[in-house]
């Protein structure tokens, strides 16, 4: 098998499909977890890692095989059967597991070169397992990134701005809890369905937010987070058995936000505010995906925070340019959102909408109430928004002070440059 020599001169040299390794790793880890049982997730991961390493050591010399995906699946399957056969002496179940995988191989379930196996079911079960409510929230996020999305411990740590050792520990603990709680590799149904799906949706929303609001750190990994979150959300929303109205709402809100990503930075790498964005550069296919799921989300009489956020994003998306934004509708949506999730960030956003409808003074008053609650004391957006509204109200000196306050707080490099440019513009105007 893997040792076959292929002369490099005749080797296939077409470039690898983007994210091939990651996609295959996700599928295979899910497949082996189904076959071996959730308690052997670590073994499933090792088998897949070994197969990727074989490719890494072989392909530079032999070239990429005609069917790289099927090649990886075959190597992983052989490796699994090998390992299990060796364990037969210690573990009576190993022989049964090896036979099941051999059976799949014979039936070409896994390593077919002629047809692409359908992984959606395995992957969905994997998401549900990783997001099981019995696991601590932080563990759900880390485990999903590792086992479903093929991130390394280092990449997870970078993406979540956390310590590598802490992430590694979280993963070990999560796998132990899966065994302890005997979490099964099944799709939830009946009464368990909604809470289990909700738990997965919350994890996906968190992933998306982590990626979308880049506070600092590696932007590449963070763009990946958004893409992964959207992919997993669509996986759930696209499967009839688990597609709840809330899952459609989440996909809608993620797609509508992701559509704006190309417009968030201008050619000079400067941050562009939503109202100033060149809407022709928005990703129209994501936009229509968002509207499509928004419509599906409204087919049931259910209003979640995701529904409201998606509706807000859709109202922005419906405006041909920033000045045509229907702020009255947006404010009404924020009023309902505040009732459902009265978080400081939501109240901050509502204050902006209020300022657009009723003027900067009203907005500033609402903002002061958020400020008094105190939990946004380190969040740069609070003084940044106040600065904006003060400038609109003609209070240049106070606005400049608020911009300087915002600059003292933690934010990303493009955000910092944006604040600085606003401050400079203000100084030029008052000079």
């Amino acid at each position, binding site marked *: 098998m893997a*040792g076959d*020599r292929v*002369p*490099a*001169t005749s*080797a296939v*040299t077409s*470039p*690898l499909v983007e*994210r*091939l*390794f*990651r996609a*295959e*790793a996700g599928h295979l880890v899910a497949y082996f977890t189904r076959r071996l049982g959730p308690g052997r997730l670590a073994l499933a991961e090792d088998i897949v*890692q070994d197969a*990727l*390493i074989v*490719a*890494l*050591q*072989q*392909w*530079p*010399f*032999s*070239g*990429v095989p005609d069917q790289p995906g099927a090649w990886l699946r075959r190597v992983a399957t052989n490796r699994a059967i090998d390992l299990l056969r060796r364990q037969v002496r210690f573990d009576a179940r190993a022989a049964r597991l090896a036979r099941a995988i051999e059976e799949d191989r014979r039936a070409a379930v896994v390593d077919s070169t002629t047809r692409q196996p359908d992984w959606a079911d395995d992957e969905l079960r994997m998401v549900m397992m990783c997001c099981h409510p019995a696991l601590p929230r932080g563990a759900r996020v880390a485990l999903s990134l590792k086992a479903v999305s*093929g*991130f*390394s*411990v*280092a*990449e997870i740590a970078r993406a979540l701005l956390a310590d590598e050792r802490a992430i590694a520990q979280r993963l070990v603990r999560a796998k132990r809890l899966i065994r302890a709680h005997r979490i099964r590799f099944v799709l939830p149904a009946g009464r368990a369905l909604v809470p289990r799906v909700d738990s997965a949706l919350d994890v996906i929303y968190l992933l998306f937010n982590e990626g979308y609001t880049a506070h600092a750190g590696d932007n590449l990994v963070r763009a990946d987070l958004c893409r992964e979150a959207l992919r997993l959300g669509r996986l759930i929303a696209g499967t009839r058995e688990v597609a709840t109205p809330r899952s459609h709402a989440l996909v809608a809100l993620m797609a509508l936000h992701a559509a704006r990503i190309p417009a968030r930075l201008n050619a000079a790498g400067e941050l562009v505010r939503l109202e100033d964005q060149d809407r022709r550069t928005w990703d129209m296919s994501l936009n229509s995906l968002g509207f499509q799921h928004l419509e599906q989300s409204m087919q049931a009489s259910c209003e979640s925070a995701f529904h409201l956020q998606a509706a807000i994003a859709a109202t922005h998306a419906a405006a041909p340019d920033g000045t045509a934004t229907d702020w009255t509708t947006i404010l009404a949506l924020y009023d309902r959102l505040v009732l459902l999730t009265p978080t400081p960030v939501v109240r901050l956003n509502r204050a902006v909408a209020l300022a657009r409808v009723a003027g900067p003074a009203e907005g500033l008053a609402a903002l002061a109430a958020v400020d008094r609650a105190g939990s946004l004391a380190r969040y740069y957006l609070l003084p940044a928004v106040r600065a904006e509204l003060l400038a609109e109200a003609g209070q240049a000196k106070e606005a400049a002070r608020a911009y300087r306050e915002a600059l003292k707080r933690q934010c990303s490099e493009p955000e910092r440059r944006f604040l600085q440019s606003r401050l400079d513009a203000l100084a030029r105007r008052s000079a």
Partner: protein
Amino acid sequence: MPKFVLLLHDQPKSFATMSPAEMQAVVQRYMAWGQSLRDRDLLVEGTKLTSDPGRVMRRTKGEVLVSDGPYLESKEVMGGLFVIKAADYDEAVRLAHDCPHLDYSGAIEVRQVDGR
């Protein structure tokens, strides 16, 4: 044009902690290097060796002694080899210089094929 053999020695290294995306990036770097030689018709072939030390045979006092390969002690294995075309050692070394192998703590041994 003279031929040269590039023997790629591997240090057992920690691919174990790499993510799939990182591993794919490594493969792609090797592929790009190979392709750049192929484009100039300088790559004759590439061969992967199994990752074990192999065997060494010697006749001592009339008896053939078979032992494990020469790199067992150094914990180094021969990953594989490339045969390339180059005018001389200088050029062969220059061609091997961009091989990503050197970035992953591997060593490259360059030997000329005696074509006389």
